[in-house]
């Protein structure tokens, strides 16, 4: 096995990871950010599984006449990580739903603008209250 | 016996792959959604059993064979249902099938999505 196919998987991982990263940092939509996070997660999964692979190996289930198995440890880690990943995604979605109910928007900019406006009014109210108390 | 099995399996597989590609081309080239459903659904429903039968003929008698049979039955049950339900949902959702050739020039624009 020469160098290029040997490293190709890593490059796929890097590409996917960067795609997910790009989505997370550049897109304003929160749902899309979560999808980007999912992409990022999947790339990490692929990285682990790639490291666990062994050339000529079989899936790590003991069978007659097979002596080379892939490394089971990354499989275990990723197996649990996938389920935990979906649970955390669900938490994120729940947060997004609540945010949408509170702000009527899932765009980061709009939420930020609303927040700023809210803060401004609150500051003004506070200032007026102080003035009136004086 | 083995020769017969091999040839039947080969015929099944070839027919299956032909249908598969036909369905794919139809999915890509057909003008509107309902003809695409037709292209994809009908060919897929036949292609999947053909391919799986071809696979079954190549295997030894074991538990795996039963599993392939289960996959076959499952695909056979779900695929037409899903396609039919999709077409129906689309119709309910407001898409109208293209009826005549003259309409295809006027009505092809995505008026309702």
């Amino acid at each position, binding site marked *: *096995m020469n160098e290029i*196919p*040997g*490293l190709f998987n*890593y*490059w796929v991982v*890097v*590409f996917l*990871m*960067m795609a997910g*990263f*790009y989505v997370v940092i*550049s897109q304003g*939509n929160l*749902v*899309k950010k979560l*999808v980007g996070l*999912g992409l990022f997660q*999947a790339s990490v999964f*692929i990285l682990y*599984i790639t*490291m*666990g*692979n*062994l*050339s000529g*190996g079989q*899936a*790590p*289930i*003991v*069978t007659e006449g097979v002596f080379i*198995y892939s*490394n*089971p440890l*990354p*499989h275990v*880690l*990723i*197996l*649990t*990580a*996938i*389920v*935990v990943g*979906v*649970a955390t995604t*669900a*938490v994120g979605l*729940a*947060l997004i*739903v*609540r945010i949408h109910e509170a702000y009527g928007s899932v*765009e980061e*900019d709009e939420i930020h603008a609303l927040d700023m406006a809210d803060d401004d009014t609150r500051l003004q109210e506070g200032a007026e209250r102080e003035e009136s108390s004086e | 016996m083995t020769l017969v099995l091999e040839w039947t399996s080969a015929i099944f597989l070839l027919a299956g792959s032909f249908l598969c590609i036909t369905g794919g081309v139809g999915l890509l080239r057909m003008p509107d959604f309902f003809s695409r459903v037709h292209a994809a659904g009908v060919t897929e429903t036949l292609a999947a059993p053909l391919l799986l039968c071809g696979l079954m003929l190549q295997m030894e008698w074991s538990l795996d064979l039963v599993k392939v049979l289960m996959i076959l039955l499952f695909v056979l*049950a*779900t695929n037409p*249902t899903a396609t039919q*339900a999709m077409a*129906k949902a689309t119709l309910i959702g407001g898409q109208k099938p293209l009826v005549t050739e003259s309409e295809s020039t006027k009505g092809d624009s995505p008026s309702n999505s």
Partner: protein
Amino acid sequence: MLIAIAAIRMRDLFGVVILFGVYSLLTAVLFMDLDAVDVAFTEAAVGAGVTTVLLLSSLRLTRRWEAPPRHNPFFSLLVVGVTGAALVYATLDAPLLGDPSAPVHKHVAPHYLQEAAGEVGMPNIVTAVLASYRGYDTFGETLVVFTAGLAVLLLLGFSENGKSRIETSAIHDQVALKVVVKLLIPLILLYALYVQFHGDFGAGGGFQAGVIFATGFILYDMVFGVENARAVMAVAWLPRLAALGVLIYGGVGVYSMLSGKPFLDYSALSADPVQGQHLGVLLVELGVGITVFSIVLSIFYALSGRRRQS
């Protein structure tokens, strides 16, 4: 693989979700090719099924179309490009794919591979490592899933007023669909049980089985309506079931601790250590399965039961 990514630039969130499902399928095929059967199993069940369902039901609650981008993407592209270049540079030193001398294969993995069949007594080493050697980790993961489910319930809660959402309860007029689904659901549940208890020998285990079991219920909910589904599986029971699963797991640990062995050492469960290991793994997987099932289902109920408020 790479093509699915360009999808991300699509503005239509619905299309993004569908393509994400497709991407997940492809990932699972890749896992199969890299000999990771269990992982492919989980990814298929979770990524393509549950994630799509959850994303769609939360998309229903929010807006579908994305606002046009306002920032200049150049800066983020720059950051991404630089990071990517650094990572590619780092991979040049990484071990090649399938190289047996890579450091990953040198540490504890050979021990697991050689001893697991004798010590734990089950052919599927992934299950053995998951439930026995790294039982602490898995316990932690189960707790994380449990906590995440509780967080979702705290944030959303189950919708209490069932009467206002009768109209959104089922797919209308789909007779063929209803009949076929009615036939298929027992099959799905049976298959989930097979996955649950066959995990010692083939691909499968508690995590996957829980997800598949929940998938069966989600299917029922989607086709026959919420009221029917909730009549089968009452909402109030789900958190209790989840807690029960965690309790089973923890109880096995505490029992082995009371018997004078370390926490989660299953050889305490029976006179024959291998037998005890087997029993312990079975119980623990059962606990994991119950927890995952009830959490996934309750998350689905919470997300889909909520009405859109605008």
